[in-house]
């Protein structure tokens, strides 16, 4: 049985609504993209949707009580919630340097959670 899946391509402002026909979890046709980059994007997005995670982590003795952090590369969309919880469980001590690795290999994604800014110690 084939099914139709619609994915909005986000590569450019056109925002083409691309229709995929899927059978047995395999894409058998792609329609509605106005460029080849769109085709590649929706394939990736269907088989393996990933997102960069950006959030904050609690800080001890810093000029701010939280520091903005991000995943060093995109992680599977279905791991975002787990990654948020793991990040929330940790508290890091100031001073912190931008790009410092705060959690390695977050929830087995091979991505690290890194600092998005430098944060000074609170004097």
């Amino acid at each position, binding site marked *: 049985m084939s099914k139709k899946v619609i994915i*909005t391509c986000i590569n*450019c*402002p056109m925002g083409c609504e691309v229709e995929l026909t899927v059978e047995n979890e395999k894409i058998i046709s792609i329609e509605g993209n*106005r460029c080849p980059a769109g085709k590649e994007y929706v394939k990736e997005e269907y088989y393996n949707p990933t997102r*960069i995670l950006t959030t*904050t982590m609690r800080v001890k003795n810093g000029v*701010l*009580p939280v520091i903005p952090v991000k995943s060093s590369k995109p992680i599977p969309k279905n791991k*975002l919630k787990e990654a948020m919880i793991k990040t929330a469980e940790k508290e890091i001590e100031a001073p912190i340097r931008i790009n410092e690795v705060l959690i390695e290999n977050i929830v087995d994604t091979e991505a690290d959670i890194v600092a998005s800014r430098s944060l000074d110690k609170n004097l």
Partner: protein
Amino acid sequence: MQKYNYDLAVIGGGPAGLGAALKAYDEGIEDIVILERDFELGGILQQCIHNGFGLHYFNEELTGPEYAERFIDKVNACGIDKFLNTMVLNLEKNKKIIAVNSKMGVFAVNAKSIILAMGCRERTRENISIPGDRPSGVITAGTAQRYVNMEGYMPGREVVILGSGDIGLIMARRMHLEGADVKAVIEINPFSSGLTRNVVQCLDDFDIPLKLNQTITKINGRERIESVEVSKVDNNFDPVPDSTYSIKCDTLLLSIGLIPENELSEQLSIKIDKKTNGPVVNEARETSADGVFACGNVLHVHDLVDWVTKESEIAAGYSVKYINNNYNIKEKNIEIIHGKNVAYSVPQKLDVFNDKSDVEVYLRCRKPKKNVEIRFVDNNRNVLFKKSERYIKPGEMINIKLSSEVIDSIKSESIKIDIIPGGKNE
């Protein structure tokens, strides 16, 4: 009162102020001061922890704080002076600035040139007169963003968001990721003004409903907000009778527009453009006050910080010429008229300079359209410049570069910008 003298004073230490100060420094100005009300430089970028910044300027995808830190590090390395936790109270004639902070009290700064980079504020509930009770729990989306991303507070747990511009969309995702139940994003228009990417990655990803053609018609709650009443609207944005439904919530975030912060500009009687709510400027981004320039969100609301930086460099470049007595205008004073589907343009006029440089015009369309041509014509309908665009939206600013040859070729007292159907049909 203590007085300080500088060549250049920059009011605001966000991306516009940082870019302007650094450009002026690069062009040889040594006495520069940045006046910033927050405890650190970076402005609004410090609370914009999501990514998407710098794609054009750095060719990288950065978060707001990362983008800011690139400029802050350079400002610190250059030894540009900064007064933090400092509020500018008054702008007086002769470019005298009155400011205050708790360490120095009230003091004055005299500058040869001033660059206004104060950014913008958010439209509030009171601005649009939402009827009902006045409980707590009703805040602007940017305020919520500051609370969550810098102060470490969760503003609430059951959230409704009014407005589907980028700030509303970004905060929908943020609140959801932090564990709140984001019940709906309500939008009065038949479309979201935010980037498609944000509608997909902030709402669709998390099954957060986007309710188009609707608005909030009442707020209920005794001490804390308890619910909102939502109604459908017609083509005139008037509520449709009997279409009202209720959503239970403890927090309402408002993402209903940004207003350039020009209280100080008005003290100098700087001419303000009603279309942008920012100063009327020429291509140098000079306001109607001599030697006072403007850039960034105080001039007009931007959607990408990359263009804020570019604009700050334009303003600073000409501010430096002004400081060096090298600010040479030819006789022309050309008005820019807005034709079909043009919401606004910056600059609003051209004072042609002797320096033979290109002119960057930033503009927005009124309505989304596919396959258009943007045309600049003179009084006699001669086409000075044209550019095709596949897809334009009000939420995405259009950049046009007019070469010095095009500028020199203008023989009329005004030019007109039109956005018309046509362009390539692919």
